[in-house]
């Protein structure tokens, strides 16, 4: 499983971070950092929730 970020869509709201703070973090510059772009299968449900929470549809899951 791979988390894909479309930087042109992300507006750094941090809602993904509030859902899964160990995987997403808005850095000091305001850009979203993926802390682990290839998370383990056991957190798929959490990743799906984080991806679905994005209001700007900037996140997606591959694989």
């Amino acid at each position, binding site marked *: 499983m791979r988390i894909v970020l479309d930087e042109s869509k992300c*507006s*750094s709201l941090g809602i993904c971070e509030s859902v899964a*703070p160990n995987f997403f973090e808005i850095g000091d510059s*305001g850009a979203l950092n993926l802390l682990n772009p290839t998370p383990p299968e056991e957190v798929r449900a959490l990743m799906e929730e984080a991806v679905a929470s994005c209001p*700007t*549809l900037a996140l997606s899951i591959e694989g």
Partner: protein
Amino acid sequence: MTVTHSNRATRSYDEADLSSRDFWLSTAAEREKTFAVLRAERPVSWHRPVDDMLIEDPNDQGFWAVVRHADLIEVTKRPDDFLSGEGIVMESIPQVFLDALQGFIAMDPPRHTKIRRLLSSAFTPKQMALMKDQIQANAKRAVDDLTHTGEVDGEVDFVQECAALLPMYNICDMLGVPEELRRKVAYEAQFAGGFKDPELIGDQEPLSRLLEATTYLREVATDLVAQRRAHPGDDLITSLVQAEVDGESLSDDDIISFFGLLTVAGNDTTRQSTSHAMKALTEFPEQRAWLMEDFEGRIQGAVEEMVRWATPIMTFRRTAARDCELNGQQITQGDKVIMFYASANWDTDVFDQPERFDLSRSPNPHVSFGGGGIHHCLGNQLARQQLAALWRELLQRLPDIEVSGDTVYGYSSFFHTINHLPVRFTPES
């Protein structure tokens, strides 16, 4: 837009009234009757311009009303079709106010994207967690203010003595506004959404009063920016004057305009949510009892329902960038498109028994912070934390606080304003 499209001028108006002063002076429950008909029968409908405009706009022939939850979300997620840069409220507003007061909320990409990212870093979950203790301390202070006033005469105006104070403390802390300017800043900020309200405006001319308010907020912001350039502090203005993305920094005008947006959006929203929630907690005592059975376990979901119930911002406007379609209606370039958030939050396709204030409602996909998309409320985490902090403080310290008189609503087609809400409570011993 300067082009007048003939089909806009000749299009016939829907028979439902969303434009009159009477409509906006009535209650949310009254307005819902009209919304319910439109949602069921004519989800995208054309209406005459709203009453009590700020300026005469010969190109303003009316607006499209978007009332369904799904359609509102679609408009929000099509920022290429539906622009914010020509204004975000129903009324036509001179460009000078858009620039001065509305910051990046009234901008479109690519400029919006760049500025929003710079500002986002101050509102992330991590930043909000750092502010948690401060927000709780400010909630304590707001309740202290309320109880001290209550000692004098027993009945207190909840809006003025509590609901208005909490967001003012938090926003001013974030921005670094000195204590002695805070009440005036919060007061002047009200004119942005309250320029129609007779109680606020009195016999003044709305446009010139709005200009006065704008000028004041810009002066405060200009001074703050200059001070923080010379003497950096640990507040948001300091971060903004120092912020750089790809070698570009924000201009003073960008920061000053953002200051205007934050004082308006930050004060008048949480104030309304808190006041409406106070009223609802009185009217639905069983909901309050349910919350108090497990406050820490239930407050997070309860806040979502409070924000749905209040719908502190009732409308946002977009302007069609080009001819396009929306749920079967042909929209013409330059048309105003108004999203009605209270209607979407009462949409029975999404919410079971929306007329019930149900703190256990789950899921609760309300649109009070927006329908998603690039303008989604920047302060949503701040608002949620403030509401939780205030009810934690208020309901535990003043367990019998309740509304004790008539609610006085304001007049606005933008903010769902409560001007006065008398409450009574047994003072702390």
